[in-house]
């Protein structure tokens, strides 16, 4: 006979009560673990996405309707490239790399038919000084701005890595007038590679680099020199978008407002706004997780407390007998607390397991993210479960420990 024999046998003596209490703990912990797990990976996905986007401020023509950050520049509206000079001359703190772009649709032959891609004109840094009106702004590439870090020297020799990382950096050092960078999907579609030639809008281009796959619409883009694209599309002096890598700190200090003031006829949006929907979902899930946590603490705790109080009442005769046989109050307290810990421990472990499986199944379906088990949640789930069970059981257990052993007698 051991303490755990007493507790274990009693637990299974009242199976239905034990099962319903255990189920309440289990389901509660499962829900919180599942939501927390999905939220965590969803937040990571957003962070990754934001990181991959690189540019975090877009300047677009006023009339553009923004659906998706990646394809924000794919539209028929254009704005004057004078906006670049206006931004540079405004001396706004926090404006880092600038990348003016023009996007035009192109059709590439595919056996018997054609397939549409987007030809995006980009301006290499090296060409900024070449344009007189932008020359005053060349410092934008050579000085750290607002504490954001040192920007690379535009006169430095560009490397192959620079080009490959275009999607992430949003700015390229150098790109010849008839050189092109191909998105991964385009290259795969054309079965072409670096050094090959390609015909675009009637002119021949050399493939300078095939970009790394990004999983975004950038994979379906063909990048070429901005001035060449402007000329071929008959849109000289026009832009679809100006991408800016702004400092987060400066953005929060009102950089966007200053840009809006400088360019009242343009639309200035931040990446935060674009991913706001997903962030909102994450926030909502975070809040939902908190609500469930509160529900579990209150309902689960009340359920356990109720079960324990009922259990103490039912067992008062048995407790009295134990006391008559010499059980001290500490032992009676331990009998009930051990029972609560057992329920909490098993509920916590089971809840973690079920919650994780649920998250792994539902994560890709509901939040569109792959979810992996988070071992830290096991500690958290067990701690929470055991904690609630202990707190909820303490007062019933104390009542049991203080029971009058007279309850064992028929007549007093």
């Amino acid at each position, binding site marked *: 006979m051991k303490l755990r024999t*007493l507790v274990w*046998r009693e637990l299974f*003596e009242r199976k239905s009560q034990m099962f319903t209490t255990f189920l309440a703990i289990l389901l509660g912990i499962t829900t919180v673990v599942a939501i927390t797990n999905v939220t965590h990976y969803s937040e990571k996905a957003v962070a990754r996405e934001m990181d991959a986007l690189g540019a975090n401020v877009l300047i677009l023509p006023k009339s553009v309707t923004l659906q998706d950050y990646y394809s924000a520049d794919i539209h028929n509206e254009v704005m004057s490239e004078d906006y670049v000079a206006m931004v540079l001359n405004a001396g706004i703190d926090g404006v880092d790399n600038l990348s003016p772009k023009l996007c035009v649709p192109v059709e590439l032959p595919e056996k018997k038919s054609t397939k549409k891609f987007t030809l995006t004109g980009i301006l290499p840094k090296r060409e900024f000084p070449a344009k007189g009106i932008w020359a005053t702004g060349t410092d934008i590439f050579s000085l750290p701005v607002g504490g954001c870090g040192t920007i690379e020297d535009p006169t430095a020799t560009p490397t192959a890595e620079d080009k490959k990382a275009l999607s992430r950096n949003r700015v390229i050092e150098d790109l010849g007038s008839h050189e092109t960078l191909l998105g991964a999907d385009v290259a795969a579609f054309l079965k072409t590679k670096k050094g090959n030639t390609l015909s675009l809008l009637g002119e021949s281009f050399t493939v300078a680099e095939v970009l790394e796959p990004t999983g975004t619409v950038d994979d379906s883009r063909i990048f070429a020199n901005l001035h060449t694209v402007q000329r071929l599309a008959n849109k000289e002096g026009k832009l679809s978008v100006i991408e800016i890598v702004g400092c987060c700190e400066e953005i929060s200090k009102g950089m966007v407002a200053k840009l809006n003031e400088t360019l009242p006829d343009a639309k200035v949006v931040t990446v935060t706004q674009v991913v706001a929907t997903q962030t909102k979902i994450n926030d909502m899930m975070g809040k939902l997780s908190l609500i469930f946590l509160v529900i579990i603490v209150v309902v689960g705790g009340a359920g356990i407390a109720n079960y324990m109080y009922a259990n103490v009442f039912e067992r008062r005769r048995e407790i009295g007998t134990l*006391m008559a046989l010499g059980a*001290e109050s500490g*032992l009676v307290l331990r009998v009930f607390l051990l029972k609560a810990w057992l329920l909490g421990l098993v509920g916590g472990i089971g809840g973690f397991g079920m919650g994780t499986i649920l998250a792994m199944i539902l994560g890709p379906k509901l939040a569109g993210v792959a979810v992996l088990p988070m071992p830290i949640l096991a500690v958290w789930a067990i701690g929470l479960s055991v904690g609630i069970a202990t707190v909820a059981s303490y007062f019933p257990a104390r009542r049991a420990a203080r029971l*009058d052993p007279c309850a064992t007698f028929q*007549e007093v």
Partner: protein
Amino acid sequence: MLRMENVSKSYRHRRKTVMALDGATVDIPRGDFVSIVGPSGSGKSTLLLMLGGMLSPSSGRVLLDDQSIYDLNSDRRARLRKENIGFVFQTFNLVPYLNALENVQVPLYLAGVDENTQQERATALLERVGLEDRMDHKPAELSVGQQQRVALARMLANDPAVILADEPTGNLDPETSGQIIDFFDEFNREGRTIVMVTHDPRAAEHARRTLTLRAGKIVGQEEIERPSLDAA
């Protein structure tokens, strides 16, 4: 060994004071066998509970081997019960989810005895009460007489000097009652002090003395001649 000095117990019930025990003075020497008789509500069980350290008096003192029981805190009183007192209840009070062997092991576990010794001693005690073939039976699987014998084995587990029994034959048929009372005689011959509350005159006759309670007062004490029992 056990002494009550002018012990009273009163409690409030619907704004009225009820005297459960009124100025009881009793002296029970070591090895005595006392039966307490009286009508229901006369205070018999109250007196027994007080002797067992389970119900504090409103006034007066209860002493076990010159130690005032109620000067101890509840945990020390529990230890005192564990070491000195064995209880027998009218409804046996066996733990329903433990088998006979485990029920007898409970007081041994409470006394801190290791598991092997618990098993050996519990087995020997169940053999003594004739239940060697019922050790793995739960209380619900035993007859009332067998349940009371398990309760007797449990009571003997820590070899108590004092046995307090609350109507131990109250739920039993005459034949089984006789068997249980025979066990009490045997325990008394071993030198244990027995205080037994009973309504059963035949059980009461086995005691050396009878205390009669009425309305919370001890109204009579009678020595019982039992030459045949004492000679045995």
